[in-house]
């Protein structure tokens, strides 16, 4: 039995009620339905705003982070006054202001194998708005194992992807990507950047797909992957088929319960010291500064992209972008003390692994990158 709409709701949703594919019954369906959004960042922000505006009765928000100034260029559900506040609180306040008739559940915790089933259980549709591979595989496996549709979106600079993975009717995320990339190969948005509007486009497509699934209308992206390029303004689709060797939704599954996804992806857990390569390989900004002042000969290698040098740089550093490093090893002398750095320490960790595997031993990672250097040693440099 679908819930009735009040007079106020009939007025609020009048533009929906005028569309035959939605109508009064469709709007009542939306009121009775629920969506869980994992990640209240660039993708989750527009998705949450539009689902709340559309009158989806119950919206769950998962995020353990707090609002940072560098989020505001794209995470439009949060405002400047919310910097430093929990993202789920910030988003909930905005959604309830937009539409007080919806119910907003908040989960201020990392989404993990231990809590995923409990958190996701009441919801009809799951939206993957996360920013890391372990949570994407967790979200996929959870949806396969519990029979829920996973509305997928992902972004990188100007490129976006979107699909609906529903193993009951088609392929899942693992059918397309059985394994994650080697750690560090595909940089995160924090390292590589992202056009702020891009997750707006993709997150809005995710909200559209969720609404269509809840209403049972149209053709979803199930079995198709949308490839969006904002620079070319191109939308391409490729066909996706169920992978008969899929380890979670194939005929002979190996994954029958949620696993350790950090281990699966070869990355440290969420509480790992970000920007560290491990204590044996790290040097702090203060330690490096002291060594340089004592006249120690150090070969400083900046593995950032050339355009980042316009933001900040360290005197005397040589720029070899991470993508070029493998082909430019001959420029480095293994006999020298080498310190690698990037913006925050994750790309330089990848560079360090590359050098160590090539036989370099006297090599260190500047923990926390040039941003740590700016905070601890050279405060006139901006943090970005």
């Amino acid at each position, binding site marked *: 039995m679908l819930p009735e709409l009040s007079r106020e709701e009939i007025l609020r949703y009048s533009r929906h009620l005028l569309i035959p594919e939605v109508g009064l019954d469709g709007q009542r369906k939306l009121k009775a339905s629920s969506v869980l959004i994992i*990640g209240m*960042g*660039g*993708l*989750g922000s527009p998705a949450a705003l539009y689902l709340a505006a559309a009158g989806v009765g119950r919206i769950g928000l998962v995020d353990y982070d707090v609002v940072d100034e560098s989020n505001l260029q794209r995470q439009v559900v949060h405002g400047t006054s919310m910097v430093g506040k929990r993202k789920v609180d910030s988003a909930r306040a905005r959604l309830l202001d937009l539409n007080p008739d919806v119910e907003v559940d908040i989960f201020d915790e990392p989404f993990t194998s231990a809590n995923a089933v409990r958190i996701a259980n009441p919801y009809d549709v799951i939206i*993957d*708005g*996360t*920013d*890391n*591979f372990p949570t*994407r595989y967790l979200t996929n496996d959870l949806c396969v194992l519990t029979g829920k549709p996973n509305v997928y*979106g*992902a*972004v*990188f*600079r*100007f*490129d976006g*992807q979107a699909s609906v993975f529903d193993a009951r009717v088609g392929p899942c995320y693992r059918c*397309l*990507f*059985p*394994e*994650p*990339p*080697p750690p560090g*190969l*595909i*940089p*995160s*948005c924090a390292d*590589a950047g*992202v056009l702020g509007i891009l*997750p707006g486009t993709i997150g809005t497509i995710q909200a559209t797909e969720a609404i269509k699934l809840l209403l049972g209308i149209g053709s979803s992206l199930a079995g198709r*992957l949308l*490839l969006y390029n904002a620079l070319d303004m191109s939308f*391409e*689709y*490729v*066909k*996706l*088929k169920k*992978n008969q060797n899929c380890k979670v939704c194939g005929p002979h599954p190996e994954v029958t319960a949620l696993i350790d996804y950090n281990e699966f992806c070869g990355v440290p857990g969420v509480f790992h010291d970000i920007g560290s390569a491990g204590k044996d390989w790290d040097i702090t900004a203060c330690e490096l500064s002291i060594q340089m002042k004592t006249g120690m000969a150090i070969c400083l290698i900046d593995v950032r*992209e050339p355009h980042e040098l316009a933001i900040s740089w360290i005197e005397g550093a040589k720029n070899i*972008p*991470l*993508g*070029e490093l*493998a*082909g430019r090893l001959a420029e480095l002398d293994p006999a020298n003390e080498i310190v690698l750095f990037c913006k925050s320490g994750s790309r330089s960790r990848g560079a360090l692994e590359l050098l160590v595997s090539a036989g370099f031993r006297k090599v260190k990672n500047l923990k926390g990158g040039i941003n740590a250097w700016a905070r601890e040693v050279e405060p006139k440099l901006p943090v970005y």
Partner: protein
Amino acid sequence: MPTIRIPNPLRSYVRGQTEVPVQGATAGMALEDMLTQYPAFRPQLCKADGSLRAFVNLFLNGQNIRDLRGLDTPLGPGDILNLVPSIAGG
């Protein structure tokens, strides 16, 4: 001459190009030609046995070559292969 389209996250391995013109009568030969031009790309894209790593797909005219004949999928001279890696940003 077939072309391999390179998505943004992998362009640093091909000196920033959006497309790499290649020679080859099959997807595998085209891939091999690109990796010969950009050897540092090989360990990122391929396993030791030469097969594509599982985080990346090659699509020919909208179809995954895994659903066609894999690296033996024949190519025409004007064909475009789309390299599609997993990305995680959100």
